[in-house]
């Protein structure tokens, strides 16, 4: 028994033609559409509907599901698009969405899209649909899957995508940016340092070496008063003139400490 079901929304109409498997034809109840023979998807403003079979329906439902999910969450999928399936993606320019339906999924000759007008057979049909049209498509799909009397085995799995599925290329780029920046700065620094001549080590002449040795006995002489626990900050490399000026401070400290 042929049955036709229509899910009609302002901007998108899904029409399903099919047969009922059950022999009992209940007069009052809606018979169950269990075998799909023809599927039609029409968008308002387009010349002709997309016509296909079960494959087109399944593929369209899958694409709608993915696209809507990505659209609500704003998280794009990392999975590569399959050319043999319906693809639905946000438009590259401007608002709206790009729908790409491979010609293999369409019934040849029945749809205006599949007609080979200029003798050229296009590999796919491409449509631009608005956000409102996508909503109507989603709503029609949801009504269809919620309808227990039409293809009851048809189910849409709505679940969050895993972290692996949404790891977009942009994220990889973002993650690798700090590493690249680090490597690049090390390279630049290395190149700059390469041109700086290595300083020559000049061994000090022997005459000069002997001169400081004579002045050295002075500093140990000045050091003992500074070695007091009251003034541990004094630097051992201080010149003798400084050590002389700093000498009064240890002298005053014993007076104040008791």
């Amino acid at each position, binding site marked *: 028994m042929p049955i036709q079901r229509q899910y009609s929304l302002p901007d998108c109409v899904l029409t399903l033609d099919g047969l009922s498997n059950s022999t009992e034809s209940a007069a009052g109840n809606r018979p169950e559409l269990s075998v799909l023979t023809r599927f039609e998807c029409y968008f308002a403003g387009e010349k002709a509907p997309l016509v296909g079979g079960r494959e087109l329906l399944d593929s369209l439902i899958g694409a709608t599901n993915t696209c*809507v*999910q*990505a*659209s*609500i*969450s*704003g*998280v794009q999928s990392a999975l590569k698009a399959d050319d043999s399936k319906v693809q639905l993606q946000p438009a590259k320019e*401007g*608002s*709206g969405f790009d729908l790409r339906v491979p010609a293999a999924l369409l019934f040849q000759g029945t749809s205006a899209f599949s007609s080979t007008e200029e003798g050229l057979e296009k590999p796919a049909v491409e449509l631009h649909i*608005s*956000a*409102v049209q996508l*909503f109507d498509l*989603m*709503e029609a799909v*949801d*009504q269809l*899957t*919620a309808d227990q009397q039409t293809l009851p085995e048809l189910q*849409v799995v*709505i*679940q*969050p*995508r*895993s*972290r692996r*599925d*949404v*790891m977009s290329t942009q994220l990889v780029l973002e993650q690798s940016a700090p590493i690249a920046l680090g490597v690049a700065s090390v390279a630049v620094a290395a190149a700059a340092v390469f041109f700086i001549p290595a300083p020559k080590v000049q061994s000090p002449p022997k005459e000069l070496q002997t001169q400081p040795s004579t002045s050295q006995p002075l500093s140990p002489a000045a050091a003992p008063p500074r070695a007091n626990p009251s003034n541990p900050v004094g630097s051992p490399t201080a010149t003798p003139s400084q050590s002389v000026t700093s000498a009064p401070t240890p002298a005053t400290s014993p007076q104040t400490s008791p």
Partner: protein
Amino acid sequence: MRLNDMGLQSISLMDTDKLEMQGAMAQTDSYAFAGLVDPEMPGQVCPRRTRIQLDWMLLALEALDLNATENIIVGLHELQLQPVIKNRVHLWQLRNTNPLRRFSQRQPLSLTEGKALVVLACYLARRQTSTIRQLLRADEQLRSKNLSAEHHFRLAQYLERFRGHFLSRMNANRTAIAPYKSSEALNDLALSLLGQILFCTGTAGMQRLWSSLFDGEVA
């Protein structure tokens, strides 16, 4: 904000009948949240993106409907969500789990509370379905003619209100808010939220919104 004044009074109330609430939550789980499956989240709390997204969607809904605050309270009664969201103050606290808010509470949002906000958002969105469609269509037409949003009264009104709500409630010092300094960026955010809200008005809108909130968050 009116909610602010009432805040301190009922915080103490909430702690006392926490046990009672948990029992009621289990009850609410059975009917209001039908079809919303718990994702496998560590600690059974909503992640950061979920909290931000939910709050921003409610913000957009408030900008869309002047009576949103009243409608939310009516919705809590109608949807029998009171065991989870007791009153305005509690709702305000839940929305303040958004880390980008000025008065962020730094508290977790449990999955049950998240579900309640999803149910509430979808309830509000469904009441505004026709308006959302009109606005999105208007935006599309304006774009095709290269006109700014100011040429459509209702759209301009929505965008202005959204910008006002956003700037008054979000913490401008946060890095995540920095990209939304200009009014163009805020307009784009408002329009993308509008598109997201439209998808929540459908037959399976609630499930779609709920699952999208955890997109890329589950293992």
